[in-house]
């Protein structure tokens, strides 16, 4: 403990010295042209909780909880440095309770030129689409797997980018025990052979990465690999309106609590192809993931210490009823994909009207794999096999149509129909035998905006979720069953103020006592980069997904306050 605080102090000192020295080491750039600035941002999310046994809102002993962060960044020429302070007194409901207390959890110093870009401190980095490595920060979800270490990026010649990184990952207010190191190379063929290919319409980008983690084996029974390597290769071909991307990643055996200490290798394949022209586009994505959770600590779970990122290929929804039961990539294994067509009926045509009409159709699905158990009696290792053409159980599918239409200068609307299948046992409980029926639901949304003055408007949202069976569980708290209706009325009298009332009503619950209204009233004020919002009411339990991991946020009742600001 003593040593770590000493380390922190010396790092802070190093940070200070760098800032002190930099101004005396001015580069050849003219002073007026060079950036020399301090910027930052703040976010405060607080809630006063009132228990409500009917909706399942628990009694919160502290009554008042808050999540707070502030970033400060200093830039001078090619040099930059920054720090982030976070405070959880205590952390809000629905987040990991190990976020407790406060402190400076992120600081970095960076010197960036086109040839060489060096960062020490907390680093956010992504190789390719993230299948081998992605560290990022999502404050609303309290996801931060930054690498505390060093990163070097170099562009020795045009068209070639090399990256090297090593460090340990953030783990609440400390770092995880495993060491992560990796490298990535990306070649833009057209830029590399600029004189011959620079003007060609076909663009080709190739990339490859290798990431390894080291964690000591202290298991009394198993012989575990202390070094686990993961490598990936990718290609991106772009020709006029066509865009093709594919990445494959392979990980050696990595027994972990995620895979119940199986010695099987892991692999992931992610592909995307699209065609887009003025007014029309097509996009298809496919993905297969098998045993691909990659963490710097083999005993960790949930969203902790993930090194890689496995993108979900199902549609990302923004309306509440559509997002009530969201899907997230299953690390253990899944195969899935999506296809989407978008078309815009042109202005002045029968269906386009005066402003044009947009239509989007999307179908996405995810299925399990079919593992075949294998156990090797000579080494007493257990693992399993899978085949590419064996498709397992239905996990999720979603058919979605959206029409977006501006009727005239004052009225516009969005209309959505969606049909969802959601395997609750797998997605929410991670167990095929959890005992819940899968949800089958039809969902409709109408979102109408009426702009009665140039900067004043009223917006109405009407949503309905219709379950196939009235006893079917319809959100994460297992109490909500059957059909839902939701309505939102939002009034924006000027660009600065907004007022909204929302009611989410579980009217179809077969138990009359549980036909609950979740009323919520919010108001807020905006000015430039500053925003303050307050709310009062009930919020139903929900699932939020990030980095392939979902967490359940319990129902709550009370007053919320949210402030965001940047300078």
């Amino acid at each position: 403990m003593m040593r770590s605080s000493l380390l922190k102090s010396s790092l802070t000192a190093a940070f200070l010295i760098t800032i002190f020295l930099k101004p005396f080491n001015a580069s050849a750039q003219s002073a007026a042209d060079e950036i020399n600035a301090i910027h930052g941002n703040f976010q405060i999310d607080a809630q006063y909780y009132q228990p409500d046994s009917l909706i399942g809102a628990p009694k919160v002993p502290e009554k008042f909880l808050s999540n707070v962060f502030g970033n400060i960044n200093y830039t001078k020429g090619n040099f930059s440095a920054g720090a982030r302070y976070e405070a959880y007194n205590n952390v809000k409901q629905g987040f990991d309770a190990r976020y407790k207390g406060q402190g400076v959890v992120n600081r970095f110093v960076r010197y960036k030129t086109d040839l060489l870009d060096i960062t020490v401190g907390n680093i956010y980095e992504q190789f390719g689409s993230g299948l081998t490595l992605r560290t990022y920060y999502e404050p609303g979800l309290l996801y931060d797997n930054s690498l505390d270490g060093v990163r070097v990026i170099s562009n020795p010649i045009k068209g070639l980018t090399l990256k090297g990184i090593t460090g340990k990952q953030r783990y609440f207010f400390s770092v995880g025990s495993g060491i992560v190191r990796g490298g990535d190379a990306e070649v833009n063929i057209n830029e590399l052979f600029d004189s011959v290919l620079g003007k060609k319409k076909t663009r080709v980008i190739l990339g490859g990465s290798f990431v390894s983690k080291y964690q000591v084996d202290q298991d009394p029974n198993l012989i575990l690999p202390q070094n686990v390597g993961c490598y990936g290769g990718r290609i991106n071909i772009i020709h006029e309106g066509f865009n093709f991307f594919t990445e494959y990643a392979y990980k050696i055996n990595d027994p972990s609590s995620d895979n119940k200490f199986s010695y099987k290798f892991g692999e992931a394949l992610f592909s995307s192809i699209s065609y887009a022209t003025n007014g029309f586009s097509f996009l298809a994505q496919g993905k297969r993931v098998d045993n691909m959770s990659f963490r710097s600590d083999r005993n960790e779970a949930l969203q902790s210490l993930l090194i890689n990122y496995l993108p979900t290929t199902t549609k990302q929804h923004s309306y509440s009823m559509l997002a009530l039961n969201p899907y997230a990539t299953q690390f253990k294994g899944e195969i899935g994909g999506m296809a989407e067509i978008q078309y815009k009926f042109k202005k002045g045509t029968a269906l386009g009207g005066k402003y044009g009409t947009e239509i989007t159709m999307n179908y996405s699905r995810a299925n399990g794999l079919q593992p075949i158990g294998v156990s090797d009696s000579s080494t007493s290792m257990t693992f399993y096999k899978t085949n590419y053409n064996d498709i397992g159980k239905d996990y999720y599918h979603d058919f979605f149509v959206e029409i977006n239409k501006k009727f005239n200068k004052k009225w516009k609307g969005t209309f959505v129909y969606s049909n969802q299948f959601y395997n609750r046992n797998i997605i929410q409980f991670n167990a095929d035998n959890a005992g819940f029926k899968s949800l089958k639901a039809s969902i409709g949304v109408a979102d109408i905006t009426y702009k009665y003055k140039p900067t004043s408007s009223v917006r109405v949202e009407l949503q309905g979720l219709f379950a196939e069976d009235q006893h079917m569980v319809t959100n994460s708290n297992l109490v909500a069953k059957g059909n839902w209706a939701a309505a939102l009325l939002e009034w924006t009298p000027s660009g600065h103020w907004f007022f909204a009332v929302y009611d989410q009503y579980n009217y179809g619950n077969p138990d009359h006592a549980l036909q609950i209204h979740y009323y919520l009233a919010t108001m807020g004020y905006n000015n430039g980069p500053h925003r303050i919002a307050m709310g009062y009411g009930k919020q139903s339990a929900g699932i939020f997904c990030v980095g392939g991991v979902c967490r359940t946020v319990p129902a709550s009742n009370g007053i919320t306050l949210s402030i965001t600001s940047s300078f």
Partner: protein
Amino acid sequence: MKKIALSLLFLTTFSFASLAGDGDKIPSATVKKLDGSKVNSNTFSNNGKPIIISFWATWCKPCKKELDAIAENYPDWVKETGVKLIAISIDDARSSGKVVTDVKTKGWEYEVYIDENQDFKRAMNVNNVPHTFLVDGTGHIVWSHNSYSEGDDEKLYENVKKLAKGEKLDH
């Protein structure tokens, strides 16, 4: 010790640096063009004319409303003030494939970049999308606004016009 160090840090940095709002240059971060090539954000320019930088995402409804509203009048804006809009998508690998299909279907004529791991978003201290910045003809950030409500696009254009004439801006 840590407290002293932190307060020292604040004091020293403030004494050397200028604060926001007095027009700093666009910070340096690597973003990706739709043709896959990488560009440093500090090279964004528009021949001495104003630039709008708008952070958005394919899953962000108000962002698309804002960019749609601007798109209706964009040819006039360009003709009258020479302004250029740079749209920065913060979509990650899950939805970054949708950036080009959305932009093309909607027929947006903006300069579009993808900030896949949010390096530029962090450098610009953006909390949430949509977040819109105005950059003057000499490349200095002079105005920013978070969130979108109906009519904000018209206020933005009032400021673009003022900027093109060299007048003072308001929020």
